[in-house]
């Protein structure tokens, strides 16, 4: 099969911008890439797909010289290359727009654009030329229909604008190959449209675009070809027009996923949590009221910046409250700060697992028990034996895949990290669980297990409020869905009877 591919590739060599063949990379104990390959043609958008850990980013890191590959060859426009770092790749027309933007936020747009290669007034006058920087930046911005003043300080701009600057930077290097890594994860619909316009423009100019994303609708819309990877191996490369969402999932997972969501059998009881006219002092959260019942899974939908996360953080007391009332079980709770909220029976699984969820250098036991150390106190000392027992119980009941509880949490996969953090909150015995994007960055298999856990919690009579950007997930898991828009609650829908269109319309209500 491999020979076949190579033959067909060599048939129209001229059109091929990038060819990566037989790339191998081994990390201690793991074969991250096993004869991986990727061929990108001129003037196409090539989607790179796979579950987390399938080797997509490792493959890209080998291209940019962040990792040195053990074996294999990389050809750009027919000649073999071996970039030592991303700077060298950039100078040779291979650029990457990172998911996490790496920018000097306190400097302005053009300082960021020309960082590392500031133009000087002339060869004999080695002072940096603001005028050249400004003019060149404007030229590229006009070209890409980016409406940003090059003198704006980066930190005052929105994430999408900053991303546009990053794209413009890639273009300014005359890049032939541009890699987009999850570019739409923080963009609104409208901004996604602009991004797609730019991508199409670049494609029409003959650039090769590598597009990494988990969002299948986008992939099917924007890409010409799709390469799917699994376990570090190349699985398939097909024209996007010949693929369906189910097929992609099947190729990614390696088996047919008949049930993406577990059977719902939770019983809904009486009202447990009442939120009335909640507004934030420094956030856009504006006059939100809703009720949640015992054993109910309540979804929160909305675009990024619509106040979903702000709602959870407000309930949990992370942000300063302007006005409003939270009632739990008929009694008003103040929830001034997380410490108080935990005491009142609330738990919050935060959105940014790496930044605000895990304690990376601590082990599983320490990460599990950190929020309930009081339970394990004997006098002033902690009872390690009891902590060990509890941790083992949770590892078993939540099916955490780990050699033992002494393992550092950072060495687990995303899904298993999330389970450990769930265990941490379950240990505090909460009545209301606030989950912010509980399945973000987790692969399809692990997602199913998280759904099961959520359902089990609901069955135990707990109330789960869950924020998610994946609408299908909300429809599949929740009972009721709150839709946020512009900091306000724009609607409340029944998950059984609603559809994506209705939710999208509500989400755009106050934009």
């Amino acid at each position, binding site marked *: 099969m491999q020979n076949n591919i190579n033959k067909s590739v060599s048939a129209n060599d001229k059109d091929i911008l990038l060819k990566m063949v037989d790339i191998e990379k081994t990390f201690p104990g793991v074969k991250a890439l096993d004869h991986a390959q990727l061929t990108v043609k001129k003037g196409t958008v090539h989607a790179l797909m796979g579950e987390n850990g399938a080797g997509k980013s490792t493959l890209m890191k080998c291209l940019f010289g962040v990792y040195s590959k053990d074996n294999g060859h990389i050809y750009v426009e027919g000649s073999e290359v071996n970039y030592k770092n991303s*700077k060298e790749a950039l100078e040779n027309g291979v650029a990457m727009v990172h998911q996490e933007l790496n920018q000097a936020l306190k400097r302005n747009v053009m300082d960021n654009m020309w960082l*590392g290669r500031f133009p000087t007034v002339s060869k004999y006058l080695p002072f940096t030329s603001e005028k050249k920087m400004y003019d060149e930046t404007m030229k590229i911005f006009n070209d890409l229909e980016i409406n940003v*003043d090059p003198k704006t300080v980066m930190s005052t701009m929105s994430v999408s604008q900053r991303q546009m600057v990053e794209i413009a930077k890639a273009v300014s290097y005359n890049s032939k190959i541009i890699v987009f890594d999850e570019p739409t994860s923080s963009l609104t619909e409208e901004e996604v449209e602009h991004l797609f316009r730019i991508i199409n423009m670049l494609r029409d100019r003959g650039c090769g675009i590598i597009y990494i994303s988990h969002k299948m609708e986008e992939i099917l819309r924007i890409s010409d070809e799709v390469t799917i990877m699994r376990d570090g191996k190349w699985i398939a490369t097909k024209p996007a027009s010949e693929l369906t969402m189910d097929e992609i999932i099947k190729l990614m997972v390696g088996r047919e996923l008949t049930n993406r969501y577990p059977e719902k059998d939770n019983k809904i009881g009486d009202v447990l949590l009442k939120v009335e006219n909640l507004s934030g002092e420094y956030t856009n959260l504006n006059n939100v009221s809703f009720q949640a019942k015992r054993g109910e899974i309540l979804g929160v939908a909305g675009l990024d910046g619509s106040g979903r996360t702000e709602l959870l953080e407000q309930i949990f007391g992370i942000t300063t409250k*302007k006005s409003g009332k939270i009632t739990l079980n008929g009694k008003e709770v103040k929830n001034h700060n997380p410490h108080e909220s935990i005491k009142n029976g609330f738990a919050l699984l935060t959105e940014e697992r790496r930044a605000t969820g895990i304690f990376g250098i601590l082990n599983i036991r320490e990460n599990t028990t950190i929020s309930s150390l009081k339970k394990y106190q004997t006098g002033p000392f902690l009872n390690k034996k009891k902590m060990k027992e509890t941790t083992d119980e949770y590892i078993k009941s939540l099916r955490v895949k780990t050699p033992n509880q002494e393992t550092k949490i950072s060495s687990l996969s995303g899904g298993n990290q999330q389970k450990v953090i769930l265990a941490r909150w379950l240990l505090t015995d909460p009545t209301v669980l606030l989950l912010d994007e509980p399945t973000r960055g987790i692969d399809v298999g692990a997602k199913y297990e998280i759904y099961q856990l959520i359902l089990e919690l609901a069955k135990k009579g707990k109330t789960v409020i869950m924020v998610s950007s994946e609408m299908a997930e909300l429809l599949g898991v929740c009972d009721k869905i709150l839709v946020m828009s512009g900091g306000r609650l724009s609607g409340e829908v029944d998950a059984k009877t609603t559809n994506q269109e209705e939710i999208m319309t509500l989400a755009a209500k106050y934009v």
Partner: protein
Amino acid sequence: MADTSIKKAKHSGISLWIEKFKAADKGDKKRLITDLLFNNAMYIIIAIAVIFIAIKVPAFLSVSSIVNIISLTAAKLPIALGIAGCIVLTGTDISAGRCVGLTACVAASLLQMTGYANKMFPNLKTMPLFVVLLAVIAIGAVVGLVNGFFVAKFKLHPFIVTLSTQLIVFGTVLMYLMIGGNNGQTLSGLDSSYTSFITGTLFTIGGVAIPKYVLYSVILTAVMWVVWNKTKFGKNMFAVGSNEEAARVSGVNVFMTILMVFVLAGAMYGITGFIEGARIASCSANTGLNYECDAIAACVIGGVSFVGGTGKISGIVIGVLLLQIIFAGLNFLSVSANMLYIIKGVIILVACAIDMRKYLARR
């Protein structure tokens, strides 16, 4: 969305604030006013202090007093200009004061007048000023090189690195002062070519002489402005201070940038030492003690923030000036020297807290 950002850039800070204020509701208005007061608290406090002192002691605003403040500002400016670079990199340099002490002592010892009884090097002929200046700049730069190397190469926090070098430099000064017949005494009896080059009259205003080192300070400020704003090195420094990783992936030589910021700072301490040697005219191991405190305080007051990546030369000049106004004013009020330390400490603490408040995301 992009249109608004362009509008924003065209507005000046004040008109933008007024616009925001008009649009805000009652609660937000209160917050905006508190923010405005807090963000400018340092200037407000100092303005009140100046008015208060001027009323109590009118001589505070006399020509001689103002010239004195300007001269002191000029003397303390170069060290602040040097240390500011380290702060832009989110670092600091607490070896600065001791480094000024070392270079001041070296400069003074090499430029004592022939025939002076306690001359450190009795057989040394009068050296050309230029050579001594280069020598002390080199000494400062070497200290900076050591600081920068450990910071850039081993990723040590500048606080730890300069805490160590500060001790090393102090020990060196003490040993240096034991050389020859000096036996640890203060260095005085300077050659007139040296003292007149530094403290000689530039011109006089209302019968009060302005010393020459004011001019040197102005030149240094201009040079540093060009370095910060018009060179690749300057722009790279700000980029590294704002986001080191972004600078690295954009191909900036982060190691060299950090190293050079510290070397440049060291060179500035050398120049400060050269000026201080003649200005004080009796250098001892205690020369330069705590200079870094004043310099750091001045930077923070002037908006060179410890969060890194921000700061302006004009801010540093204003910061040093304001600090000297306060100190001079407190002298006029005959506040004791002991009390002065406490006030300095409070100023640094308050200035840093107010500065940090600007960058804290409120939630």
